[in-house]
């Protein structure tokens, strides 16, 4: 089985937000929640970079480790998913996640923040694959249809890569070799405890 990962080639990302829009539309993500976002660091300064970030589907995921009701599970493709029927909206996964991926439908924590929502790697949730119930809770399940996440497919510059970790790392490495520079794979050290030689 593949080990699914995301890699954002920040030397290519032009902050067009196509990935953000694709995700919101594909899964009909409600107001106030952005499963994917584009952060620009060093904005307007030398070394400015835009990085598209969602859930990295970490190895030994911190969110899963701290969840008091243990509602996370990891698929055979190493995608980190959670069961909204079990979530109590405590916010612990948000404290632990290095990438700010978990989001909540409610702003306050009084009586809970509502069911946590995050990027599913377009892999839905524990419900029956591609059932209406799954769609309402988690959005589309493209993985069950043999497709990769829509954000990466919609990326206008192919900066955002999704797929088996080794394959996307190889693509990135080849790019870096050809063009002679690369600022590295954002989040990989934190999420997967490994780096892609730039």
């Amino acid at each position, binding site marked *: 089985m593949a080990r699914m990962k995301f890699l954002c080639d920040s030397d290519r990302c032009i902050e067009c937000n196509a990935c953000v829009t694709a995700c919101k539309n594909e899964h009909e993500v409600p107001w106030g929640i952005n499963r994917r976002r584009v952060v620009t660091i060093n904005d307007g300064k*030398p070394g400015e970079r835009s990085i598209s970030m969602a859930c990295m589907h970490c190895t030994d995921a911190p969110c899963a480790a701290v969840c008091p009701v243990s*509602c996370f599970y990891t698929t055979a493709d190493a995608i980190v998913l959670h069961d909204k029927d079990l979530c109590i909206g405590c916010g612990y996964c948000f404290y632990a996640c290095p990438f700010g991926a978990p989001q909540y439908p409610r*702003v*306050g924590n009084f009586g809970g923040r509502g069911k946590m929502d995050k990027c599913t790697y377009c892999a839905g949730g524990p419900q029956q694959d591609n059932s209406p119930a799954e769609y309402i809770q988690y959005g589309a399940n493209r993985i069950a249809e043999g497709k990769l996440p829509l954000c990466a497919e919609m990326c206008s510059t192919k900066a955002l890569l999704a797929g088996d970790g080794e394959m996307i790392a190889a693509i990135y490495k080849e790019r870096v070799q*050809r063009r*002679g520079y690369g600022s590295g794979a954002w*989040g990989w050290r934190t999420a997967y405890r490994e780096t892609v030689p730039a």
Partner: protein
Amino acid sequence: MKPVILGAALALALLAGPVAAQQAGGAPEVQAPVPEVGAGRGGVGAGQVPATTEPQRPTGQPAAPQPAVAPRPAAPIIAPAPLGDRGQPDAAELELQAALRGERIAGRISIPDPKAANLIQPEGRDWRAFHNRTLAWIGGIAVLGMLGILALFYLIRGRIRPEEGMSGVTIPRFTLLERANHWMVASCFIILGLSGLNLTFGRHLLLPLIGPEGFTAVSMAGKIAHNYLAFPFTLGLVVMLLLWVRDNIPNRLDLDWLRAGGGFIGRGHPKSGRFNAGQKLVFWITVLGGALVAASGYVLIFPFTVVDIAGQQSAHMIHGVLAVLMVAAMLAHIYIGSLGMVGAFDAMGSGQVDVNWAREHHALWVEQELARTRQAAAPGGARAAGAD
């Protein structure tokens, strides 16, 4: 700003054209660049527009054969790094530095959610280690350790009874308000503590027993209880402070009491006022610890109103550690007040305590009370009021 103003002016001018033309009823001021009448002059029915102006003449020669694969450069063409990027550390390096310094990597974001501008927050890892390891160990040792000590104490010392037995005569110790407030705080505390400990340990202890659905139902109810009971708990703390702070100021007698090992560990009964040093300790643990636990808890109930994510992580650490320590302290308090000492429970139960018990544990207080009742009962020149 400049282009916006220019654009607006242009739009106004364009709009004003037709309007002026209508009003004047004359020819439009803006003329089409191409005359709109006549054959081949543009406009409707003007014929096909050629795709290119290049004359398309056949050369009469076959196309040159194309190579099957595009030629590749022998060596990759290395482009220089963009100017601003030269000598910059890469992502992995920046992440490592941020993690070592405990800093966040953040930037600017175009969606209206400022907290999403955090790209990577390595502190999440520390918080995870705190919650899953540090807090679990502190909590486990504090709670189990205290239970162990109390069990041992019970085995060695048994229940502490008044040395001279019960006299059968009681004096009032706590008013109805004092008792009602105590039990409000106590019941809130027990539910707050149990629902909190459920978040720390339930996943390992309760979840395997009752299954995921049941455990979520319990935890959800616990979470709601934890949030709502926070308010009566805090109110009770304030009332408690107002009612009892007067009798809980530490003084010299407390040192003697502590030196003698108290009425619990030692055998003697050092004199003390309304509250002895042990009880004063319980009072201050409750009031000060409770205040900190409440303050850090409210910060968590209203995320991002007071502090950002780093502040919430710290508030949570303070809340968790103080809470489990308070639970341990209160276990000892509950033990002494119930099983550990005969006669103690009545103080908070009926509000009346046996005089012998009171003499042993709160000699000075009994003297004061008796003096006060004597004064109140027999003021100079008073007559017993008859039923006449």
